[in-house]
């Protein structure tokens, strides 16, 4: 059967077309980047890019209000929330290359491709050639925002109220979920101190992190007198995440350099620089890079 092509109405202007192609490339690249980046932070940033591109698309399509909301709510609020949680959970946490599920990746890609082809075929099959545009509707209400407002508070007022309730519920839910119930009376500093003495483990306060004055980051363990790093100095959360940064080798590496510069300054003879590989033989185990957090626990 021969399709008779209907004339296209409401076509996009050339400017919009150019804009679309640029934005489309950015959006797809952002999306792919989000999926492919191994670090969550990178994924979040890619997604933010895609969202901004989409926001501009909305505006181009006449949904000015939505475009703004997209930027304010999504890119501004939701993505920030994401970033907060990423920080909380671990910036550097990344997926291992090897998937625990055999064939999952291939199956997912195949299914995804199939789905995409189906969707696109479906859209192509629909032969949409008449785009009315929302201009008339906007004009009738006196603008896009006014139009939306009129609809939200009349036709969709019920849904609007319900989503309001949903939002409140979600907020309370988030609080409940992250709230931790105290199962016993909160221990005061005095209690803690007494317990430490009673147990006799670590009576004094824990040593501070950081190696001399060169590092003051919380994730860098302090060095013991013999040059080995002490795990005690690092916050247990970071330890649990395996995000302890061992810089002892680096320090030793730079020790020679330091000594040389000091000697130069004092006019002494420089001793032979000692290399970290020699020095770090004994505590090699302690200073070995901590396992990544995302090692599957099979």
């Amino acid at each position: 059967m021969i399709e008779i092509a209907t004339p296209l109405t409401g076509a996009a202007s050339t400017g919009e077309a150019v804009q679309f192609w640029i934005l489309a490339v950015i959006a797809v690249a952002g999306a792919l980047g989000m999926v492919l980046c191994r670090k969550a932070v990178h994924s979040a940033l890619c997604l933010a890019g895609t969202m901004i591109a989409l926001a501009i698309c909305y505006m181009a399509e006449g949904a000015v209000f939505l475009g703004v909301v997209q930027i304010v709510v999504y890119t501004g609020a939701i993505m920030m929330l994401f970033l907060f949680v990423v920080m909380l959970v671990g910036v550097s946490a990344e997926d291992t290359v090897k998937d625990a599920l055999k064939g999952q990746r291939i199956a997912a890609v195949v299914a995804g491709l199939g789905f995409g082809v189906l969707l696109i075929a479906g859209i192509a099959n629909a032969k949409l050639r008449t785009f009315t545009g929302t201009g008339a509707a906007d004009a009738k209400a006196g603008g896009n925002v006014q139009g939306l407002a009129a609809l939200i508070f009349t036709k969709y007022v019920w849904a609007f109220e319900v989503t309001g309730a949903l939002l409140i519920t979600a907020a309370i839910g988030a609080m409940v979920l992250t709230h931790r119930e105290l199962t016993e009376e909160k221990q005061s500093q005095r209690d803690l101190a007494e317990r430490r003495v009673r147990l006799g483990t670590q009576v004094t306060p824990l040593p501070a992190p950081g190696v001399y004055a060169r590092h003051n980051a919380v994730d860098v363990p302090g060095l013991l007198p013999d040059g080995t790093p002490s795990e005690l100095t690092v916050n247990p959360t970071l330890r649990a995440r395996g995000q302890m940064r061992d810089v002892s080798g680096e320090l030793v590496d730079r020790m020679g350099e330091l000594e040389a510069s000091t000697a130069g300054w004092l006019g002494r003879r420089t001793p032979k620089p000692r290399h970290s590989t020699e020095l770090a033989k004994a505590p090699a185990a302690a200073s070995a890079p901590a396992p990544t957090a995302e090692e599957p626990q099979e």
Partner: protein
Amino acid sequence: MNPVNYLYLAALLFTIGATGVLVRRNAIVLFMCVELMLNASNLALVTFSRLHGNLDGQIIAFFTMVVAAAEVVVGLAIIVSVFRTRHSASVDDTNLMKL
């Protein structure tokens, strides 16, 4: 240009998001993929709104955003509390239902 291209873009993004959900293991990234899918559908809704010349599509997209916000709040809270107990954000680690 036929505005239907927006729909193709939406379909593409949706597919990428869906595949991402299946491929990634980090719960946060997983969530981001879901957000991408929602955004893709929003784009489609806005385009449909343009197609039909009324604002209902935009309204629905608006609601989608609200619901997505709520969902993200709850979802991230869940991720945080899971992380607290299991010290991991990988969805593969929450497989206690496994036999």
